[in-house]
């Protein structure tokens, strides 16, 4: 079996550097709480320490996101936060100090985009964020969310089309690029 050339130590360190922030945001969206998210992400990296780099390295990102997601869902269940985000309902992060997405935007167009995202079904939001925020491929998103490639394709397309509709009403989008 081929081994990753770097030490475990350095390998985990590099992964931590690259994925700490995005995983924290991902976990925070699922658990609804920044502190829970920290625990989830810590667990995720502890699991990475026990993993075989030769097996995991080739698909590190989906591995981390999958572990993180499952852990976060477990934690949410334990914490009794079973209510998934419904359509039209903005997320609240009571303890984590994370506000509704749209408030974070400094720019009007960005606020509009985030507001539309907030109204999407949870699954659409998740797939869309994994694509545009986390930069995963469709295939990786399918692995992480445990859905088929076709489903990912549908979710991302539907989300992007919804945002386009909203922006279209405000500007001549085709001239924007």
């Amino acid at each position, binding site marked *: 079996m081929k081994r990753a050339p770097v030490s475990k130590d350095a390998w*985990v*360190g590099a992964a931590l550097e690259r994925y700490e922030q995005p995983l*924290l945001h991902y976990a925070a969206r699922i658990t609804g709480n920044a502190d829970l998210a920290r625990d989830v992400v810590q667990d995720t990296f502890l699991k990475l320490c026990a993993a075989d780099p030769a097996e995991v390295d080739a698909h590190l990102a989906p591995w981390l996101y*999958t572990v993180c997601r499952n852990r976060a869902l477990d934690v949410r269940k334990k914490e009794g936060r079973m209510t998934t985000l419904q359509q039209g309902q903005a997320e609240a992060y009571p303890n984590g100090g994370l506000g509704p997405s749209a408030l974070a935007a400094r720019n009007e167009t960005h606020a509009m*985009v985030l507001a539309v*995202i907030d109204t999407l079904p949870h699954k659409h939001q998740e797939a869309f964020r994994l694509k545009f925020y986390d930069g995963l491929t469709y295939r990786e998103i399918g692995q992480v969310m*445990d859905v088929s*490639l076709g489903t990912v394709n549908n979710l991302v397309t539907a989300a992007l089309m919804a945002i386009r509709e909203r922006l279209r009403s405000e500007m001549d989008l085709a001239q*924007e690029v």
Partner: protein
Amino acid sequence: MTQQLSDDKLVAYVVGELDKAEHKAVEKALKSDAAARHTVAELRATAKYSRQALLEWGPTDLKLSDGQREVIEKRARGPRMTDVQVRPAKRPWYRLHARQIVGLAAAVIVLAVLASIMGPRSARVLETAGLQKSISPFIVQHGLGLREDMGASLGAQPSFVDDPNLNYWPGHNTEAYDLIVENPFRDVTQDPLSTFSIDVDTASYANVRRFLNQGTLPPPDAVRIEELVNYFSYDYAPPDGDTPFSAHVEVAGCPWAPEHRLARVGLKGWEMAADERPASNLVFLLDVSGSMRPQNKLPLVKKAMRLLVKQLGENDRVAIAVYAGASGLVLPSTSCDDQRAVLQALKRLESGGSTNGGAGIQLAYDVATRNFIDGGVNRVILATDGDFNVGVTNQGELVRIIEEKAKSGVFLTVVGFGMGNVKDSTLEKLADKGNGNYAYIDTFLEARKVFGQQLGATLVTIAKDVKIQIEFNPAQVGAYRLIGYENRILAAEDFNDDTKDAGEIGAGHTVTALYELVPAGQDIDLPSVDPLRYQRQTRLTRAAATPELFTLKLRYKDPDADVSQLLSFTIEDDDAPFAQASEDLKFAASVAGFGMILRQSDHKGTATFDGVLEIAEEGLGDDRYGYRREFIELVRKAKALS
């Protein structure tokens, strides 16, 4: 001007998800499609704003605490440290009567005695068991593009960039397998108890066979060794008392590690003649979504169900519910007196639409509960390729629905169909939570096994929540390893906890578990902890001085009971070499060896395809239905592929 290219293809184009050929094709088509060019421009702008907006979202100071980082960095540097945990005081020793003497295996002395049952002794046992249980699911998806059969809902099909790193088993797509981390050897002085739930599922074998017959080696995580071993029935004597099953233990040399011993625990459920089968209330819940169209899916489901219905009679009722985009009842619960009505309804089924498994499951359970037969077989039979792509598709939520419904006394059979799209891990989980069993059917022959020869085992549950706990004698056994059952490991204290769910056993079923044992005194390289400062290690009881190898304890509940029964046996090793092992043990060992090779297991020792073939042939037995000979063929195929 109308746009020729579908939106999802344009989105895939804009976000760079098309492969080279598709990308070029779109580019070419765009030249003559002004509407599509306009859409692409809009999508580009939308994608740009989306990316920017999302990157802006969320506080940038969301960070792990320094302490958390430190823990991770420390763990990354060195071997896993054992965290100290405080546990309640030890439970007192107490004694229980074993209710029955069950079967005797020829090679070993099996005694049903007044057994000492030990409460959970140390936090470490709990901890290690806990670690096993929390193995993180990891899904492997790979493929060459979208499923061809989704055309109805998608229009023109984009095909996607193939990531060479991910596509390590080319030719199969979107199959999901949980990562299996094999059980390691455990030091008996530190982990004297091995506890797990039985598993009668056999789906992994049919799945492995499918891969091999298609000319590829299966992905390692598709190989669940216990399911391979349990695919075959073994000639264990049925119980003669009034316990629902008998237990048979055999110990012999270990073929892939000559210095080790191989112990087999075999359970056999009582056999039931066809005319003894209790009245049945069955609800078929059939996935008729678009993805079920291929010959080896819905048409095969219909054939399998027809086979089943033909064996039912006036005491049996069948309802048929279907689900696709919406779910509905095709046939209300109907007595099989009128077999023709049922068969006609089956015949009319056609596929189309996307899959909302959640609503269908609700409906099926409702129908089953309404027609509940006390003391009878009440069962939902779910036939699907497992690709739930609309509605309740969150696996956790589906599992929750099923867990809730299982309390109604309705059992579940999950049957996976088709190739290339089986959500193996989802289906197995559903079956586990639904007091159910899971089979994978790829051919009509396999349908005959599940719904023909073994119909009793498939339909009639004779004991539920069957758990096995083994206490090893440290004077005889230095270390042990349970082969397979990775996702069935229980914490030691779960054994006596009747609220903890475990596997079911059906009429006539056999269940086999294998342990690889390292005799006491042999060197084995196990991760160790430092000696304790405040406690002395193991103090042996008088029983440890006997030649007993281990104590086998079984717990089970009658199908409608809430309180478990306990059976207990002590086992000695008569030092039989592997050459003298029974045909059944030889065959089971060859299957386990095959599984380890396919899994690329660290524990496969000297196992080779040739060795597996040799032992399998010695263990062929009378092989009435030809399953063992088929296995030998598969090993040959695997050998040729490797």
